[in-house]
C-alpha cells in the first residue's frame, strides 16, 4: 500500500518562475491493483509518479510505502528501495544504444551482484515471455518501437519489483501495440504486482483491468 499525505511539489521555489506542480495531494494506492493517474498535460501526473517511485522528493508532505515513511530517507536507502521495489517503464523506452538488448535488460540488476549466469537466464526468460528472445543479441537501435517498448518492460522487471510504474506507456505505440501492452499489464496484476500508470489515453484508463482511475488537474485530485 502506498499512502501520500499532503504532498506538494514546487519547482523553482522563490524564483519568479516558481511553479507548483502538486498541491496537497493525499492519496491511498492499494496493493495488487492497477491504478491509473489520468489528467491533461501539466496536471502533475508524472511529478506524482516520480515522487511515488522515489525518483524525486516532495517539497512538503510524506509518502509511506507499506506503512514505512520514505520521503525522509537518506539517498542511499532510497536507491535501495528504487532498485528492489519499483520497476519503471517510461514514455520512451530509454534503452542504451550501442549495447545489446540482453545487456540493456540486465543492466539494472548489476549493482545487486547476482551471478551473471542466473541473471542471463532470468533476462532470457523475460524476453521469451514477451516474444523478443530472438532479439536478445541485437543492438537496441535495430528494434522496432514495439520491440523496444517490450525490452524496456523486461528491463523494468529484472529485479522482480512488486510495484510497476509506467509513465504514459502507450504514448508512442499504435493501437495494436497498446492493446498488447495492456495484456502484459494484466499478467502483472495476475502475478500480484501493483501497477501505477499515468495516461490520458482512453485505451488505458477505460480498460477493464484498471481498478481505479485518479483524476488530476492543476496539481490536485479531482473528486
Amino acid at each position, binding site marked *: 500500500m502506498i499512502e501520500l*499525505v*499532503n504532498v*506538494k511539489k514546487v519547482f523553482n521555489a522563490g524564483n519568479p518562475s516558481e511553479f507548483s506542480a502538486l498541491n496537497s495531494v493525499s492519496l491511498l494506492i492499494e496493493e495488487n491493483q492497477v491504478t491509473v493517474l489520468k489528467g491533461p498535460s501539466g496536471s502533475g501526473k508524472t511529478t506524482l509518479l516520480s515522487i511515488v517511485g522515489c525518483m524525486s*522528493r*516532495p*517539497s*512538503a*508532505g*510524506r509518502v509511506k510505502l507499506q506503512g514505512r515513511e520514505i*520521503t*525522509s*530517507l*537518506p*539517498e542511499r*536507502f532510497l536507491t535501495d528501495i528504487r532498485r528492489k521495489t519499483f520497476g519503471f517503464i517510461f514514455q520512451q523506452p530509454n534503452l542504451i544504444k550501442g549495447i545489446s538488448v540482453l545487456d540493456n535488460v540486465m543492466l539494472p540488476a548489476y549493482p545487486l551482484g547476482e551471478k551473471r549466469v542466473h541473471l542471463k537466464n532470468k533476462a532470457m526468460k523475460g524476453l521469451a515471455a514477451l516474444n523478443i528472445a530472438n532479439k536478445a543479441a541485437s543492438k537496441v537501435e535495430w528494434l522496432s518501437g514495439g520491440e523496444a517498448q517490450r525490452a524496456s518492460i523486461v528491463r523494468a522487471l529484472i529485479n522482480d519489483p512488486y510495484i510497476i510504474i509506467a509513465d504514459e506507456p502507450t504514448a508512442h505505440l499504435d493501437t495494436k501495440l497498446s492493446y498488447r501492452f495492456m495484456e502484459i499489464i494484466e499478467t502483472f496484476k495476475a502475478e500480484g504486482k501493483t501497477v501505477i500508470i499515468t495516461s490520458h489515453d482512453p485505451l488505458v484508463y477505460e480498460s477493464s483491468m484498471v481498478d481505479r482511475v485518479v483524476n488530476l488537474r492543476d496539481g490536485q485530485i479531482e473528486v
Partner: protein
Amino acid sequence: MILHPTVIANLLAAYISSFMVLYALFYGVQILKYWDIENGHELQLVLERKTYLIATLLGYVFGLQLLSLFLYIFTADSLTPLFVGAMCAAGTLNVDAFGYPTLVLKIVNFIVAGLWLVLNYADNQGYDYPLIKKKYLLLAFIAPFIVLETLLESAYFLSMKADVITSCCGSLFSSERTTGLGSEMAALPALSMLRIFYGVMFCTLASGIFFCIKSVGGYFYAALSLLMFLVSLVSIVSFISLYIYELPTHHCPFCIIMEEYHYLGYLLYLLLFGAVVSGIGVGVLSPYRQVESLKLMLNGFIRKLALASLILYAAFTALVTYEIVTSSLVIAYEVVY
C-alpha cells in the same frame, strides 16, 4: 613572514574551516530548533536535504582539520631557520605568545573533529537520522573552538617578528628548569614513566581486547584510551625522546619530526592521535547501541573502532619498544638534579 607558502596554507586552511563550520552551524542551529522527522512540513524537508550538504561539507572540513595539526607542526618546523635561537618547531612556536596555545587548541580540535566524523558516520548508517541532533549539538560545541583556533593561529603568524631571539627546545624541555609544563614533563623520572607507560598500555590493550570479545566495558576502554593518550604524550617528553635521540638530557617532542630522525615523530603522533579518536569514539557511540535503526550495524562499527584503536596503540607501543631496544642509550638509574 605570512608570505611563506606553508603559513599561507595554514591560514587558508584555518579560514576555510572556520567559514564552512560557521555556515554549517547556521543550518545546524535550525536543525536543532526545528527538526521533527514525524512532520512533513516544508521546512523539515528543506532541512532533510540541507543536512546532506552540511554533513558532506563538514566531512571535508574536519578532514582538513585533522591534517592541519600536522601541517601546523610541519610549518613551525620549516620556519626554524628564520628565528635566532630556534632549533626545531619548539623554538618557532615560542616566538610569540600564541604558538603553543594554538597547538593545544589544534590537538583538542583534532580529537573533537575526529569524534564528529565518527558520530556522522554512525548517523549516516541509520535510515531516520538517529543521531542528527547530537551531531549538530557537537558541532555547536566545536565551532567556537575552531574559530578561536583560527584567531589564535592568525595572531601567531601575524605577530612573528624576525628579530626575536627565541628559546631552543633544549631550554624549553629541560629537566633542569623549574617552570613550564615542558620542563615539568621532562623532569619526571624517566624509568618510573617508562613503567607507568607500559603499565597503562597493558591495561588499555587488555580492556580493549576484552571489549572486542565481550562487547562490555566500552566506556572504560574510552576512558583508558584518553588516559593512555595523555600518558603517551608525557612519555614522549619524559623518556621516549631520550631513547630516540640517544641523549639522556634531550627531551624535545618536536625534533623527532625532523629528517635526522627519519620523520619518526609524524608516524608516532599519527598512530597516537588515530588511536585516541577511535578509542574515545567507542565511548561516544556506546549509548546509542539500542537505537532501533542502528541496532544492526552499530555494534559492529563500535567493535571496528575499538579494534582500530587497539591496533594503533599496539603499533605505537611496538614502535616505541623498537626505538628503546635498538637505542644505544641505557637508562640504568634515575638522574636527580
